[in-house]
């Protein structure tokens, strides 16, 4: 099933400056794997060496924080929107 992934500006250099991309995946993990195949380097920015979501990055399925649910095992439905939200600190 196709889902739309919203790419934040800091990661767009890895997606040829696309702000959203469409991937296939029945779970968040599958979608991230597919993202990784399409856009090398992206997975490393999202997951640590153990395959867990990095502590300073969050993923939302539609408006739902996946950490509050099944995490990377969160099921996806066709038409879902997966939003990547990395921490940013800039203020000056």
């Amino acid at each position, binding site marked *: 099933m196709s889902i739309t992934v919203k790419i934040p500006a800091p990661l767009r250099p890895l997606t040829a400056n696309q702000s959203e991309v469409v991937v296939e995946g029945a779970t968040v993990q599958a979608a991230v794997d597919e993202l990784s195949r399409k856009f090398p380097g992206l997975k490393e920015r999202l997951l640590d060496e153990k395959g867990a979501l990095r502590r*300073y990055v*969050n993923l939302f399925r539609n408006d739902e*924080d996946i950490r509050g649910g099944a995490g990377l095992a969160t099921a996806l439905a066709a038409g879902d929107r997966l939003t990547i*939200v990395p921490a*940013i*600190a*800039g*203020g*000056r």
Partner: protein
Amino acid sequence: MSRVVILGVGGLGCPAALALAESGVPLDLLLIDDDVVERSNLARQILFREQDVGEPKAAAAARRLGAMHSQARDRASFRVDFENIRWSGSTGAALLRGADILLDASDNFATRFVANDACIAARVPLIHGAALGWEGRLLTILPGLTACLRCLFEGPPPGPLPTCAEAGVASPLCGVVGAAMARAALQVLAGKPAAGVLRRWEARTGAERPLTLRRDPSCACGILLPCPSQ
């Protein structure tokens, strides 16, 4: 008067402080920054002028705000003080004493998480604002009631990440986010907070994409101030 503490008097802190000072609401402002004004700051840090280059930011900003409308105001309706000091785990609690709200406009993750923790411990509402590149963020945090920064991100990234000075930031975006921080602060002070929603702006398109956050019961804020449902 409400005591409002602004942490970081830079791209976000300047417009936030200006908007608050112009709001007409009786305010006692405390500006905190340990940095000095650089020429490269002038394009987006709107309280500073060329003659301020080399001066401590907090002092220069307080001087400018204090001089505005000085004839029309008295110290019973507006006061502004400053501290040329770095916020840390050891200085934060004292700087937060008596505060009704903190606006975090700092520029590094370490300070942001320490400020978050201090607000949770002191139960002081926190307005979190950030801007980098073309993206701006705003989150109102009510300790014990809504998600804190650690509910959203478990902790800061390792090592240094680009700051505005290094990665760039769209100057108009600073004004948008800074003014929104001021508005959010006034909403809290008026007892009508819009908390628990992460607001995100894409300055290139003007799009705003809010995300509703939930408290994480396993977060330190959930342990210190348990969720009402627990």
